[in-house]
């Protein structure tokens, strides 16, 4: 179906061409938006696909950023190949501990437990002397990607940084698409839709959910690492529930049932902020109203706009049951 390929290909061409035609400020701005998109897609693996509404993903995000700050030697760049795995492992480990405890609860209790653990990590960095306490800490030089002293990529260049983010983003879309369509992904969705039935079929629900939660936390760590690298600064707010909630809004705007929906949600929300900030002092109020409108008008996310414009998709996985029924009777 050519139409299904057309949109992603056009978007990819735009994404590759864009940094060559817009000013540096916007290259950095889009990099930031894509990083938030990675975070939103990570969160959606837990929320949309796993049915685990987490309010502590900012903690996994911020933790990885702090790992970069703590491992950066003074004014010299840290090694990306060394610090990125350490940062991601730290986030994954935090997700493993928090998930193992929080997944003993369900529903609103799960939300509250993740919120509590997230805030614990926030106050760990806010109220102790680790990396500057509430003042935060600087990451003075962007991490460098070099093998045996030879520099492969110069991350200090906004253009290179942008393409590194874009590469990670594309890799993540491929990874998540694969996971969602794999036996594991279907088991995860089954556990979300009917936990009791999935268990009686023989699925170890706790293990499935914990695996998804840790994977989700680890990817949030990748986003946090690059966010810290880009801003050159980490602060406890990176771990706070405000950010967790904002990312949750991105997921809701983008739609829970798709891999790339949350990315679109992130771009919409961050783009909206940028436009509104420039035009009015009351931008938060306007932004809130627009978000409410989007969620009410498009409960399945802004991705719904596309079928509204061009007619329903013909993809077999998403076709409504009624058309499936009529097709089946003709077999």
């Amino acid at each position: 179906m050519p139409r299904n390929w057309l949109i992603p290909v056009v978007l990819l061409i735009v994404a590759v061409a864009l940094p060559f035609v817009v000013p540096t400020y916007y290259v950095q701005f889009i990099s930031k938006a894509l990083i938030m998109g990675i975070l939103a897609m990570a969160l959606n693996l837990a929320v949309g696909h796993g049915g685990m509404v987490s309010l502590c993903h900012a903690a996994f995000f911020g933790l990885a950023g702090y790992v970069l700050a703590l491992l950066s030697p003074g004014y010299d760049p840290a090694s990306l190949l060394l610090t990125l795995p350490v940062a991601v492992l730290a986030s994954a480990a935090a997700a493993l501990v928090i998930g193992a405890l929080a997944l003993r609860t369900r529903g609103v209790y799960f939300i509250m437990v993740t919120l509590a653990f997230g805030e614990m990590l926030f106050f760990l960095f806010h109220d102790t002397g680790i990396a500057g306490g509430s003042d935060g800490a600087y990451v003075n030089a962007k991490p460098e990607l070099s093998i045996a002293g030879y520099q492969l990529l110069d991350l200090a260049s906004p253009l290179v940084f942008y393409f590194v983010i874009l590469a990670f983003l594309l890799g993540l879309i491929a990874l998540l698409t694969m996971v969602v369509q794999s036996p594991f992904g279907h088991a995860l969705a089954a556990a979300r839709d009917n936990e009791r039935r999935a268990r009686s079929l023989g699925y170890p629900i706790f293990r499935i959910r914990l695996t998804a939660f840790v994977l989700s936390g680890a990817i949030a760590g990748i986003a946090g690492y690059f966010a810290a690298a880009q801003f050159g600064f980490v602060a406890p707010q990176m771990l706070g529930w405000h950010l967790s909630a904002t990312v949750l809004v991105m997921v809701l705007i983008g739609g829970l049932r798709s891999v790339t929906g949350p990315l679109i949600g992130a771009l919409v929300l961050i783009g909206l902020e940028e436009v509104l900030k420039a035009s009015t002092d009351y931008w938060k109020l306007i932004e809130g109203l627009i978000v409410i409108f989007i969620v009410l008008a498009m409960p399945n996310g802004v991705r719904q706009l596309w079928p509204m414009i061009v007619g329903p998709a013909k993809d077999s996985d998403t076709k409504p049951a009624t058309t499936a029924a009529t097709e089946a009777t003709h077999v």
Partner: protein
Amino acid sequence: MSDVALRANGLQKHFGGLKAVSDVSIDVHVGEIHAVIGPNGAGKSTLINLLSGELFVTAGAIKLGDTDITRLAPDRRARRGLGRAYQKTTIFPKFTVHENVRLAAQARSPKPLRMFGHVRNNADVHDRTAQAIGKAGLTPRTHIAAEQLSHGEQRQLEIAMVLATDPRIILLDEPLAGMGQSEARGIIDLIASLKNGRAVLIVEHDMDAVFELADRLTVMHDGHVIATGSPQEVRMHPAVRTAYLGDHGDAA
């Protein structure tokens, strides 16, 4: 005698002071349909939940073949060959018939939680899915969302999912509940076919169906077993006649 698929010994379940099940022992043999009957509140559903692992016993032991499963969680029991269909239909409503059954077949495949490769690419799982759908008589409805099926078809789907997990013993909790005469006919024939190479334990209120299907009967009353035996023996049992069957014993 044929080999015992499931053996429960001296099961007890207390909810606080309430003894829902007290001292129940039951054997279910391969190639045999074993029906559990009794008035409402006799403890039949509690018994099924104890056997499937959704409730843990207060006392007693459960063996699946030679394995003691008394302390195993429901998913572990399922992977050892215990399949269960529910009283209230508990399929995955948004998934198609095929996807529902495939999930069941996948649960018993060697690597049910692989993260690589599309779920459609496993030929063995696909074959077992198609087979189970065929056995349950749902082949023409394969690609319809489960929520679009009629009540009777949803029960067929339940059974197809249990079949796809390739169980040694199947627990059926009131498979005929809320079903019309003609719908029930199809399900009864389907249940009768299940005992080939498997053991079946069924809890059911429809006495005509029970006496038609069952090779052996266990009658429960107030959490106790008051009689066990062939349908003939149970029908003649004086305690059963007074406690439960009433006029129906003559009619059946």
